[in-house]
């Protein structure tokens, strides 16, 4: 993994001390809230319903064990003993006190973490594939390019006051696990016809109140031009993006209003001026960053498929867990283990300090001291020996971290909603809890099969509802919580936005509606079809009829 060099270290430490002085001036009355707000946002501090919230970057979702241990320490020392992993692969603490923020940030700096650019109208944490470096289908490790983008975009003077926030996602695999088409810029690695790797560049994806799937503006970009091309896109956006209306300020609106062809032309014109500038990436620089992501010292092992099969035959719970949570690794004898943060006992994405500490120990013991966060608010141990899967599973079970539901009905993306968020119209977590309760029979869960339910508490769509196979959006209808449904959304390489079913349902009927939708799917599915397949074949009509009857 990447390690800070002297510049990173100094930059982060200086920033902590600068923010310490700024909070001091705010607390002693030298600054009012209007003056302080942009400063605190630049340092990841929001004010939520009940308290301040601190958002901590986890660059491209990758962490070392000592980093999650430090998050546990922060949860215990400055917060209420737990934290929340978000769809942006970051961590949020919900009860941080302003007077403690600088101390918490100083503790973070000790383990090479920070909150810089975790909010505000700048380039945010670049997100990526949680299977980076270990996926069988991977062309190249996307973390290398994420790190290059991180270094380029951190405190980039030209892009510190963009029209609106800016999110970049990178995948090195054709199977998109990072939802790149739903980002301001998505980078998807492909081989060209000569077999050379390069990036398909997608622009203008996003959710919020006007969702768009990103458009491809370049089929194949050689990696050496990555930064100059990104810079060209950002320049066009910085100049032409709207600043008069917050809701029309994202690049998706610019791309939509300008048209993909014209937008591409504008970018290319800008790019021509800078493509051979200092932004051109020499191979030596790519290699230098690549070295940070060198594979760990794998043992040379045989595939242990037969032993695993015997264990699975012997224990139905282990079998269910392997089926849902364990993925293939590119190295024989190793597996990727997904850890669900969607147990029935805790809000989705939440983790207690005790779980974090214990999990750090497991990462040390079973996965070379590293872990990842994915955009579905789960964790990953990327390098587990197959023959140690069973003992790891036992230990995860003891921590309530072995729910066998990855990619299943109860593995929902859920935003904090009105239980925490000041922008919310409705609660999300209680709906998720109710779904988890209703779908607790694992046979039924596995019969329903692959499914994503995504829940947001308002139009901002932090819970990715537009791209859930089933999307649930909380709205306020005359002072009551209502939930609208969309069906058929997807965030993978076949990204699509869901279709609205019709009027929303009150809180006490929302989960009945989920049942109706799933019962309809089970009734009409063909052999081997998952929910999304059935929806794409049969369309909205049968679901609409089941939900609202025949008009």
């Amino acid at each position: 993994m990447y390690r800070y060099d002297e510049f990173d270290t100094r930059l982060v430490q200086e920033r902590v001390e600068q923010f310490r002085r700024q909070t001091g001036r705010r607390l002693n009355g030298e600054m009012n809230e209007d003056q302080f707000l942009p400063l605190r946002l630049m340092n990841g501090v929001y004010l939520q319903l009940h308290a301040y919230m601190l958002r901590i970057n986890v660059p491209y979702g990758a962490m070392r064990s000592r980093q999650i241990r430090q998050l546990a320490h922060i949860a215990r020392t400055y917060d209420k003993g737990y934290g929340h992993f978000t769809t942006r692969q970051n961590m949020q603490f919900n009860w941080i006190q302003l007077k403690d923020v600088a101390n918490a940030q100083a503790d973070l700096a000790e383990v090479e973490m920070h909150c810089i650019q975790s909010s505000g109208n700048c380039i945010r944490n670049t997100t990526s594939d949680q299977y980076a470096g270990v996926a069988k289908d991977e062309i190249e490790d996307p973390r290398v390019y994420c790190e290059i983008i991180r270094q380029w975009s951190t405190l980039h003077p030209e892009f510190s006051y963009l029209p609106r926030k800016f999110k970049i996602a990178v995948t090195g695999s054709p199977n998109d696990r990072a939802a790149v088409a739903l980002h301001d810029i998505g980078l998807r690695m492909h081989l060209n016809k000569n077999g050379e790797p390069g990036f398909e560049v997608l622009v203008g994806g996003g959710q919020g109140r006007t969702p768009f799937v990103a458009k491809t503006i370049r089929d194949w970009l050689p990696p050496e031009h990555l930064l100059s091309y990104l810079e060209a896109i950002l320049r066009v956006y910085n100049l032409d993006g709207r600043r008069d209306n917050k809701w029309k300020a994202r690049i998706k609106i610019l791309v939509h209003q300008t048209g993909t062809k014209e937008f591409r032309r504008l970018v290319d014109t800008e790019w021509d001026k800078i493509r051979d500038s200092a932004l051109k990436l020499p191979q030596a620089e790519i290699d230098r960053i690549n070295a940070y992501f060198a594979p760990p010292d794998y043992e040379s092992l045989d595939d242990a498929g037969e032993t695993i099969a015997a264990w699975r035959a012997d224990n139905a719970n282990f079998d269910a867990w392997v089926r849902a949570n364990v993925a293939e690794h590119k190295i024989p004898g190793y597996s990727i283990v997904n850890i669900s943060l969607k147990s029935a006992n805790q809000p989705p994405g939440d983790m207690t300090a005790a779980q974090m500490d214990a999990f750090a120990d497991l990462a040390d013991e079973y996965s070379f001291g590293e872990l990842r966060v994915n955009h579905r608010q789960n964790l990953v141990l990327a390098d587990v020996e197959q023959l140690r899967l069973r003992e790891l599973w036992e230990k995860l079970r003891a921590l309530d971290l072995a729910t066998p539901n990855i990619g299943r009905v109860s593995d929902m993306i859920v935003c904090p909603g009105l239980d925490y968020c000041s922008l919310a119209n409705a609660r999300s977590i209680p709906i998720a809890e109710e779904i988890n309760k209703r779908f607790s029979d694992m046979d039924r869960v596995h019969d329903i099969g692959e499914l994503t339910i995504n829940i947001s508490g308002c139009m901002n769509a932090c819970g990715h509802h537009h791209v859930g196979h089933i999307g649930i959006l909380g709205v306020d209808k005359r002072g009551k919580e209502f939930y609208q449904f969309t069906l058929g959304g997807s965030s993978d390489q076949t990204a699509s936005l869901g279709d609205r079913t019709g009027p929303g349902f009150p809180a006490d009927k929302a989960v009945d509606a989920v049942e109706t939708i799933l019962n309809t799917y089970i009734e009409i599915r063909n052999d081997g079809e998952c929910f999304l397949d059935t929806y794409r074949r049969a369309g909205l009509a049968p679901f609409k009829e089941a939900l609202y009857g025949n008009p």
Partner: protein
Amino acid sequence: MIIANTLADGFVVFLTADNGWTHDIADGAVAETDAAADAMLLTAKQAERDCVVIDPNLIPVEIVDGRPQPTEYREYIRANGPSVPTPS
């Protein structure tokens, strides 16, 4: 009632009858008239300028089992904390 967040810790507070701030809604002052509400809001805005609280707002309440409670569900959650148990 006036609801706000304290500046230093960010936690939710209510204006009291003696122009102080309390975390317990039961100790907060309830304005019975528009004039009383306006006066409370002025006091709260001054406290905001004095860097004691942020974002003070006047919210409607009703008395439930002898305690004032916000009538709007957003403010109800804000006053009473998350409606789901916090992990421990």
